């Protein structure tokens, strides 16, 4: 339908007709997304609200199977019609190429959410398969695999133990589980993105960068310029800026920011936990924005303090993202501050394999941070590119580490596939 609508927008003479076609596209796409992803959540919330008011009103739930990656390709195809509407992209006349753009397999289920200006021309003029692209592509795939099956899936064991038994863990155990989850979700999602980008690269297609060492951010605003970049720029371009962005009064600007992050939270999942997660980010970003205008804090903190503060806020918000429900999230927060409980006493009942996973978690996180940061600072990059032997030794080591420490059974699906 978006294929036909975009051709219609391209051919339309009047702005009114263009706008009408765009509205049809937006309503249809979001309508489908709403039905599959939010209908039962909406009905559940309505029924709950009614029961709180002692009403017998109750609507039936629909028996829905959520299509994998629906949030991603809905946003990708929406971005296409919006770009055609603004005249920044010509409508694609070839149905096959348009279909390939929407369903390009490496990024179909969990992004990066591509813009038509980047992906369509590359799909129209495919590059030949060349060895340099193969090497770059496989290197990214390997690194993504390491992040996913070694770091994310190892950390997941302890995270699941704590978050699925919120009453049994307190203080340090909850803090460690929350920090583990921060890195689990980062490695899970950025690992998938690396695999997707690497797969496309082997075929000569460059997908956009989706993560840029987000946990080194010095503010929540900066975090969002480094985390899930394809989604945050989507919301910036198609929600925040159309709402007026920052070219409005300060109050309206704050509201725009808050609305954008609230919608981002809802996009992540049909659960109040995601809504609260989005609201926390919206609230903190609004405070940062206010501070940038009104200068409540007149001095700047040392970078390390800003880093730690941002990481703490992000971790606090992750509690809502990971908790099985809002009630559990509050129990976890309450328990987290019971610092008098004995960490060793609480983890002593874990079996040997889970104790090993717990002990392995922190070295894996430190190794990951060291490699990513020093790569960014060209520290490791120079050694890596020094000789071919070094590079191949690195590849072999990484493959052996994946084989020895990767998790290949049980909990191995990607977290973001559910969105």
């Amino acid at each position, binding site marked *: 339908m978006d294929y036909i609508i975009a051709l219609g927008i391209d051919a339309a003479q009047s702005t009114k007709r263009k706008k009408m076609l765009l509205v049809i596209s937006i309503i249809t796409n979001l309508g489908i997304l709403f039905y599959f992803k939010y209908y039962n959540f909406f009905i559940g919330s309505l029924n709950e609200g009614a029961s709180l008011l002692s009403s017998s009103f109750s609507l039936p739930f629909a028996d829905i199977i959520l299509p994998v990656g629906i949030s991603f390709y809905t946003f990708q195809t929406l971005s296409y019609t919006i770009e055609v509407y603004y005249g920044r992209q010509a409508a694609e006349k070839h149905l096959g190429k348009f279909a390939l753009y929407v369903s390009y397999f490496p990024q179909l289920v969990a992004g990066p959410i591509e813009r038509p200006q980047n992906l369509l021309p590359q799909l129209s003029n495919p590059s030949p398969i060349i060895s340099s692209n193969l090497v770059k592509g496989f290197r990214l795939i390997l690194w993504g695999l390491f992040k996913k099956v070694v770091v994310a899936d190892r950390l997941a064991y302890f995270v699941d133990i704590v978050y699925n038994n919120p009453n049994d863990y307190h203080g340090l155990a909850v803090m460690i589980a929350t920090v583990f989850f921060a890195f689990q979700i980062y490695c899970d999602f950025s690992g998938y993105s690396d695999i997707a980008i690497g797969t496309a690269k082997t075929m000569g297609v460059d997908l956009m960068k989706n993560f840029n060492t987000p946990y080194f951010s010095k503010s929540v605003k900066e975090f969002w310029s480094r985390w899930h970049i394809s989604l945050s720029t989507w919301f910036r371009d198609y929600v925040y800026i159309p709402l007026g962005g920052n070219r409005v009064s300060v109050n309206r600007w704050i509201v725009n920011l808050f609305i954008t992050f609230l919608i981002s939270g809802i996009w992540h999942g049909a659960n109040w936990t995601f809504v609260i997660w989005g609201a926390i980010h919206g609230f903190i970003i609004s405070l940062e924005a206010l501070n940038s205008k009104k200068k409540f804090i007149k001095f700047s903190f040392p970078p390390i303090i800003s880093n730690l503060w941002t990481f703490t806020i992000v971790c606090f918000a992750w509690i809502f993202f990971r908790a099985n429900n809002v009630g559990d999230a509050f129990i976890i927060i309450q328990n987290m501050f019971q610092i008098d409980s004995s960490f060793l006493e609480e983890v002593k009942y874990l079996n040997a394999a889970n104790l090993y996973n717990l002990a392995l978690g922190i070295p894996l996180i430190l190794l990951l941070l060291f490699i990513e940061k020093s790569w960014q600072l060209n520290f490791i990059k120079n050694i890596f590119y020094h000789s071919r032997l070094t590079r191949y030794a690195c590849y*072999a080591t990484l493959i052996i580490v994946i084989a020895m420490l990767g998790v290949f059974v049980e909990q191995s699906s990607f977290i973001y596939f559910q969105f």
Partner: protein
Amino acid sequence: MKKFSINVLLLLTLLLSTFWVLDYTFTTVYKRGDYTKVQWLYNMHNEDFDFAVHGSSRAFTTINVGEIDSYTDLRGVNISVDGSSITDQYLMLKIFIENNNKVKHLYLQVDPWSTNSEEISEFAIPKFFPYLKERVVFDHFKQFGIKWYAYRYIPFLRYAEYNTIWGPHQLLNEAFDLFPQDFDQYGCYFYKEVNYRGETALQKMEFELNGGFKFLNQIIDLCKEKNIALTLFTSPIANIRIDEAYKSNMSVFKNMMNKKGVEYINYGSIYGNEKSFFTDEIHLNKFGVEDFTNRIQDLLINDFSTIGNINITSN
């Protein structure tokens, strides 16, 4: 592209050699260890027992063989493997016999509602990995699909896939004996938890008695061939719903076994809704083990009295 292909080939050769060395190291170290039940049993050779208890965790954790041993002077062993299915239990018995161990009477714990299974247990199979290259083990597993050939011939693949069980942590454990085995010298493990906090609703046991009972029949045949007396029993379960379907299915199963000349005793519902004997819905706690061991002991005394082969030591 030619250079790229050569480099890839070199990398693959390097990896294959490394994985071969790792495979050899892991296998050698694991074979020396005795942390899991399979390792412990594999290292048992030329032993002579009066009786053996066999089955899944429902046999591994519910009978105190040491207690029976001290009371009756009958030498017993528990060869059950936790998490195993009847297919794995057949293999374990074969290995036990191939290692030239002898037993007069085998007490096999079976759950008639799942004994028809021809599945291998994801939890138990990795425990056989160090021995996969041995004929008896590979001959057993190769019937479960082509992936077993991959595990057998691609070095380190099986340890990589199941490294959460047979990973470097277990290698360190075996090499430095960090965590001792958690079962006793008779091969029994007992749960520490005493309180069962599970559902109070009665459970309906779903039966499928129309299958071939392939592996149970193979165990029966093996016992006949080796002249081992065989008794099947079902360990207690909390809260079984004893309806007409349950009674009828249990009676059909008992008749089926009787026709094969095998004794079957159902202890499944003996404790009814008595939670104080359970640690969870299918495993007994220490009070349950004590009571159930006495019942099995009576059975043993009865079985061995008929062949005049028992001394009772009074406690």
